[in-house]
């Protein structure tokens, strides 16, 4: 049995955990739920030995344990699959799995034969389709996530921590994973399962612990909770069952075409994509991961150059040589990969919000401190971003608030076209709803929005029209009556059907 009691953790002035607790019985899967920034990941990191708590105690089988490093955690048979992966991209699959637990012969040499055999068995068990000698960096993100879990399981842990491992997994991979989790459960292994996907909690977990603003709010058997209960404890308010508003598509052909992408290809993912977006429309791009969605969005922005085809923007053919040219022409880009592509973590919140404006207009013109402050104050108020002070670094914010900050950065610039690449990946349900509301309001005011999303429900909710990508081509265009979950999912899987409108016009 694993028990965490009264765990406190502060990062500078930011409280990440406040007397948080968690209990997991042997052979049980405990869900750890909560909005972004509620402290779930920090709890996992405390157990994994990556974060030393300021106070609190950890008991394993009733014995008090001190876990101050990854080595301590390994000694207690705790293995972790991290949200942001602990794989080394430039090493092979085999070496990654064996890292730190290499199999040796009696003479102390690495036992190549046994290692290879065991790694292959592990890959087979997880249905990971790759060679043990493949480099991790060449694998698809979903395969990497799967590998991350496999690596943790390979360590034969007594306690397995899974931190949002399904975020980028496909449907069939999740099924495989759940099958393995059930096997491990039968072996008596305890698991802590962190996720944003509510249906998974009901499917696989025995108990649930809900966190809100760094504290443990409630825990109990999953069977005692309804979905509304969970959301209530996570956010503090009952969810509204608002039906997504359908845009009026009757005058579609009269409307101004803002973007017209014709037959573009971007090596190697995008083969032949054509799509249109009208003024004031929210166009969704759906599909499994790696079907060319990010590439098409970046091609419109000017961040990648298509090998063939043409792009028209506001009625004129354009060939942006870099994103700066696209931004200048009135395009905004919001990435879901905050750390790599959006957030300036050591800069202040004010500067982060003002970043869109900083990139535009003349380089050496006078820029008053008041203007920057005013601009960011307005955005913080308008988009309900929870911050300490405007002068705090952006890294002090939680994921959801960071994403709202990036959204605010671009909305405040009022671009003609806003591109969003999976903007709510790993964002809690509450912030996600807020971001959706902001986007709808912008579209109503005439902004054109193209959004790709990995979550099908989100895509159906937000989009007026959906292009489904499959293997670098448009598999279906869904709008109005055809815009249903069944059509979307079957198009994503590449199943031909008659319901969807023919793609290329």
């Amino acid at each position, binding site marked *: 049995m694993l028990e965490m009691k009264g765990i*406190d953790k*502060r*990062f*500078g*002035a*930011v409280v*990440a955990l406040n007397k948080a607790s968690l209990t997991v019985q042997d052979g049980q899967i405990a869900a750890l739920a909560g909005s972004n920034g509620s402290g779930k990941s920090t709890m996992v*990191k405390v157990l994994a030995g*990556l*974060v030393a708590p*300021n*106070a609190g105690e950890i008991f394993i089988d009733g014995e008090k344990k001190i876990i101050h490093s990854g080595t301590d955690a390994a000694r207690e048979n705790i293995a972790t699959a991290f949200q942001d992966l602990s794989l080394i991209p430039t090493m092979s699959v085999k070496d990654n799995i064996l890292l730190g637990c290499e199999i040796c012969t009696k003479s102390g040499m690495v036992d190549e034969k046994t290692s290879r055999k065991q790694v292959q068995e592990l890959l087979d068990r997880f249905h990971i389709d790759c060679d043990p000698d493949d480099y991790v960096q060449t694998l698809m993100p979903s395969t990497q996530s799967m590998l991350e879990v496999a690596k943790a399981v390979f360590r034969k842990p007594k306690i397995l921590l899974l931190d949002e491992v399904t975020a980028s997994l496909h449907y069939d991979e999740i099924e495989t994973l759940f099958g393995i989790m059930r096997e491990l459960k039968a072996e008596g292994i305890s698991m802590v399962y962190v996720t944003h996907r509510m249906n998974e909690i009901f499917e696989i977990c025995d108990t649930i612990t809900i966190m809100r603003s760094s504290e443990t709010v409630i825990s109990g058997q999953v069977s005692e909770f309804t979905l509304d209960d969970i959301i209530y404890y996570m956010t503090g308010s009952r969810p509204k069952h608002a039906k997504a508003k359908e845009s009026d598509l009757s005058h579609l052909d009269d409307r101004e075409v803002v973007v017209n992408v014709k037959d573009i290809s971007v090596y190697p993912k995008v083969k032949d994509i054509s799509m249109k977006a009208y003024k004031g429309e929210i166009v969704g791009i759906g599909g499994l991961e790696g079907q060319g969605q990010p590439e098409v969005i970046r091609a419109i*922005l000017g*961040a990648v150059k298509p090998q063939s085809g043409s792009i028209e923007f506001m009625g004129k053919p354009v060939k942006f040589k*870099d*994103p*700066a040219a*696209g*931004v*200048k022409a009135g395009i905004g*880009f919001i*990435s879901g990969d905050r750390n*790599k*592509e*959006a*957030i*300036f*973590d*050591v*800069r202040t919140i004010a*500067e982060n919000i*003002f*970043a*869109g404006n*900083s*990139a*535009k*207009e*003349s*380089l*050496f*013109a*006078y*820029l*008053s*401190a008041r203007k920057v402050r005013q601009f960011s104050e307005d955005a913080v108020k308008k988009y309900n971003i929870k911050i300490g002070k405007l002068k705090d670094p952006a*890294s*002090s914010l939680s994921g959801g608030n960071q994403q709202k900050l990036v959204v605010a950065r671009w909305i405040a610039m009022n671009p003609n076209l806003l591109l969003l690449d999976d903007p709510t990946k790993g964002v809690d349900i509450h912030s996600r709803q807020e971001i959706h509301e902001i986007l709808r309001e912008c579209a109503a005011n005439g902004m054109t929005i193209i959004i790709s999303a990995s979550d099908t429900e989100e895509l159906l909710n937000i989009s007026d029209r959906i292009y489904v990508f499959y293997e670098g081509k448009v598999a279906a265009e869904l709008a109005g009556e055809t815009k249903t979950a069944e059509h979307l999912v079957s198009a994503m899987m590449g199943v031909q059907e008659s319901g969807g409108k023919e793609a290329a016009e």
Partner: protein
Amino acid sequence: MSNKTMTFNPNANKDIFSKINLFVQTHTALMALIIAVVLYVVTIIINPRGLNTVAIGNIILLTIILSIPAAGQTMVLIGGGMDFSVGAVMSSTAVLTTYTMRGENGHFITVLLLSLVIGAAVGLLNGVCCVKIGLPAMIVTMAISNIVTRMQYILTQGILSGKASPLFSASVKSKIFGVIPMIVIYAIIVWPIVFYLLKRSRFGKQLYMVGNNSGAARLNGVRVTKIQIMSYVFSGMLAAFAGMLGAAYMSTARCQIFDDYAYMSLIAVIIGGTTFAGGSGTYEGSIAGSLVMVLLSNLLTTLNPTQPVRNVLNAAILILLLVLYNRGKAVRQ
């Protein structure tokens, strides 16, 4: 109950430490200033005669000269690069200044324009090699500074030649009220320009963005390459100007006279809180860091050890300072 108080006390202590830590990390310029004051007080205690107007004037003068290449270095570091050529550029324009002026008045504008062009050209070369071609900044700027140094020998054959014009020298060295050297006039011109660039222009904002996260900056519509190359060009021009002022101060200039300023400016900037990682740092910090460097050298002169001992002490104190507060930032993961 007793258990609770047991666990509470060490936490209270940790809180104070983390608060001090936070303060140090968020007030790097002030910390550099405090270190400067401590160094000066120690110097005066060891040698009370050091407290005189000539010494104070010299400290101001040398700090201002160092603060100018440090300005360029600050920009380059914020943008994620490094410029080891500032020393060679300073030496070159110093040599050029004395060589062209030959102790006569009336060449100031010519020398100024020529120096700025040279500085900009070297900066551009640095920028193109580091940013566009993508070579490591440390190696490229050193290699280029070597070329720049050889140019001095080609121009002068290694012979000490010429002299700064008397008027120009006077505009740097003569004292206002017998204490403050005239060079402050140049600082009054240069410092605000640097502050303007870093704090009140979109160039500055973009530079910080580029240094912090170049990928995000690019997708945000910033021309990353252009901004980074510009930082090298500014650095070259500032160093070129500093070389002229240095020549005016020394009157004569031998080849490689200011080569030390390459590493001195780098350390001054780091002491002032700018990080190697890029994306953070302030010019006020770099000015305070320049003051620390000058006062440290002043203290060592007061102690008057032999040259090797002096070098060892210098290095030891600098490493201590760098360790003290260029530690990793407290980042919420």
